[in-house]
C-alpha cells in the first residue's frame, strides 16, 4: 500500500493494477500483518471506532482477495 500524495488517497499496487481505497480500508490494510485474523482485526477496529458493523471487515477482505489486492491464509 502506498499513499498517493498527488491525489491524496491510499492505493494498493500490483503489477498492472491500482486499487484506490478509502481511509477506513487503509486502516484495515495497515492491520494486516500476516498474524492477525480477520476477527481480530475487526475487534481491534471496533475498539477504535464507533461504527464498525459485524462482517464489515470480512466483506472488505473478500472483495480485495477477489481483486487480487490481498492474500488470506485459510488456517
Amino acid at each position, binding site marked *: 500500500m502506498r499513499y498517493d500524495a*498527488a491525489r491524496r488517497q491510499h492505493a494498493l499496487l500490483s*503489477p498492472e493494477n491500482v486499487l484506490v481505497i478509502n481511509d477506513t480500508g487503509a486502516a484495515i490494510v495497515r492491520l494486516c500483518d500476516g498474524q492477525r485474523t480477520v476477527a481480530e482485526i475487526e475487534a481491534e477496529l471496533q475498539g477504535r471506532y464507533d461504527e464498525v458493523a459485524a462482517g464489515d471487515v470480512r466483506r472488505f477482505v473478500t472483495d480485495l482477495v477477489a481483486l487480487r489486492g490481498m492474500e488470506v491464509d485459510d488456517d
Partner: protein
Amino acid sequence: MTEPIVDGPFALLAELTYACPLHCPYCSNPLALDDYGDELTTEEWQRVFAEAAELGVLQLHLSGGEPMQRRDIVELVRHASRSGMYTNLITSGLGFSERRAEQLRDAGLDHVQISIQADERVLSDRIAGTPSFQRKQEVTRLAKRLGWPLTINVVLHRQNLDRIGAILDMAADMGADRIELANTQYYGWAQRNRAALLPSRDQLERAETVVRAARERLRGQMEIIYVIPDYYSRYPKPCMDGWARRQLTVVPNGDALPCPAAHELARGLGMPTANVREHSLPWIWEESPLFERFRGEAWMPDPCRSCERRQLDFGGCRCQAFALTGDAARTDPVCHLSPDHELVEAAVAAANEPTRGDGVIAPRSHPGRTRPPATAVMP
C-alpha cells in the same frame, strides 16, 4: 465533452534501451533503432523518475529492449523505489544473474515479469532467434526463490497458439502468480511479419476453450490474462485507456510518447518531439502538442464522433490507424464501422485460407548500439 483538468498519469513505461539479445519477429520496438542509440544517462532517468512520481505516477515499468543491458539498472531501481513508485521489471531473463537479482531485490524491486516464447526449447529458441529457453527456466526459479511475485509473459501468434495448453501448464508448474497471454499486435516489426503471425479463426477458438478451462482449474492459484487479437473483434480495443489519459512512455533517447508504439506516428504528425532532455515531464504531460493531439473527443472523425461507444474505446488505436491508413486521426480500421475496415478484413481472410501454411518469419535485426556514458556507481 472534454475533461476539465488533466489528471496525472498512473503509470510510466521506461524503455531504458533498445539493445536486446533476442530477435523476436513480433518486436514492438521501432523499425529504425539507430535513432535511439543516444540513451539517457543515469542522472537523466533519475530526474524523469522523480518528476513522474511528483506528477502522480504510481507504477514504473522498466523495459526495453532488454533492461538488464543497462549497467545502471540496480541504481535506477533503487532511485525509483525510494521515490515511492511500485517497480516492475520486464525482462527476457538474459542478463538476470543471481548476483544482480539479489542486488535488485535489495534495491526494492517489487515485481518481475519474464517473457517466454513457447513451452518447449526448440520452438521457444526459434521464435526468440537465440538459445534462451534454458536460461529463462532458471531465471523463473531464481525469481521465485528470491520471493518476488512472478508474471510470465507470452506473446501469442500463429506459430505458438496451438501450444497454449502446454504453455499454461508450464507457467503453473513454475509457480507463476500471473500469466499474460497477449496476442501479437501488428506494429513495426510485427506488421512486417503479419502474414506469418496472424492466427486463423479456428486456432483462436481452440485457444479460447483452453483458456476458459484453465481459468476454472487454476482459480485462486494463477491469474490468467488473455488478450485477443483485435483483428478478430468487432470493436477496437480501448487503446491505452485513451490517448495521454492514464499512462505514458519514455523511450531510450528521451522522447516521451503517449503510447509505446507511437514512434512513427509521432514523426508522421510532424509535431515537435516531446523530449525529456528539453522539457519537464509535467509540461510534456499537460501541455505538449503531441500529448494534447488526441486527448478527449474533439479530434474524432465520424463514425466515432457520434458513436455511443466513444467513451468506451476512445476511437481505438491511433497507432493502428496510422500504420494501416497513413492517417492517425482516422477511426481504428479494426472497428467494423470504420470506412477502412476492408484493410483488416483482407488480412483476416488471408489468414483463414485453407491452403495457408505457417509462412516464413523474419527475425528482428539489431544494429550496433551506442552505450551511454558509464555514470552508474555499482555497489
